[in-house]
């Protein structure tokens, strides 16, 4: 039994959903960020596995770009967390609910 790319794809889907679940259930901004990273990683896995399925390298190359984007997002996201934390001394996103309605 050789794992086909489909296996990987299924795993990626699972990871994506887990990441989504993390975003929806956790309220620590850092863990939410990590969950988003998890989603992006799932995408990466999809790219790689999909690339081997369709037989071109574009998927693999795409991963680099996703990586850079993820890095940039993390930097900015963490900067936002820092800003919030300095002002409110919390990383709990539920505290950030001043605007509503």
């Amino acid at each position, binding site marked *: 039994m050789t794992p086909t790319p489909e296996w990987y794809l299924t795993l990626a889907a699972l990871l994506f959903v887990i990441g989504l679940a993390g975003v929806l259930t956790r309220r620590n901004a850092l863990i939410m960020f990590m969950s988003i990273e998890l989603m992006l990683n799932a995408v990466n896995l999809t790219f790689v596995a999909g690339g081997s399925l369709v037989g071109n390298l574009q998927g*693999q190359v795409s991963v680099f*770009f996703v990586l850079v984007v993820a890095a*940039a997002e993390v930097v900015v996201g963490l900067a936002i967390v*820092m800003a919030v934390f300095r002002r409110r001394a919390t990383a709990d996103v539920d505290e950030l609910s001043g605007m509503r309605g």
Partner: protein
Amino acid sequence: MEAFVFLVAAAGAVAGAVTLILAKNPVYAALGMLGTLFSLAVLYVTQLAHFVAAVQVVVYAGAIMTLFLFVIMLIGVDAVEDTSERLPSQRVAAVVVIVGAVLFGGYLWLSNTFTWSLARAEVDPLVGSIEATGLILFREWLLPFEVTSLLLIIAAIGAVALALFRPARRHVGDPGSGDSGGER
């Protein structure tokens, strides 16, 4: 053998992911994340994406997770999160949404109209060598590559602009009069 590697790595990835979303302590979560990243790197290798695997370890596990941990430490490592849900209906909503997503995905996966790909290539396994990757990256996809540099500039600016926190100076007409370049 291959199946075994896959299963182990997959289990590691899922375990890490579950740890990530369930851990009360952000440090544990980060460690779970790290586990997932390494597991994925293994899976990339089995998919013959060697370069990707390498980058995964270096950039993700190395750089990004470090940054995460850095910030976790900065804002207090002992800040154990109270994971009890306080938002009314959020947990219900989340469960419904996630279960819905899983059910829908599962339904699709099992339905007879499902296939992952319609463009299956029956060719030799791809090898994500550095050369092949580099050719695409620096030739065909030169522009996106350059654009990523913009992202990095933005990230740098963003980090500076957001993390720079001083009591706001009201009615400052001229930023040049301050010591602006200093933080960069």
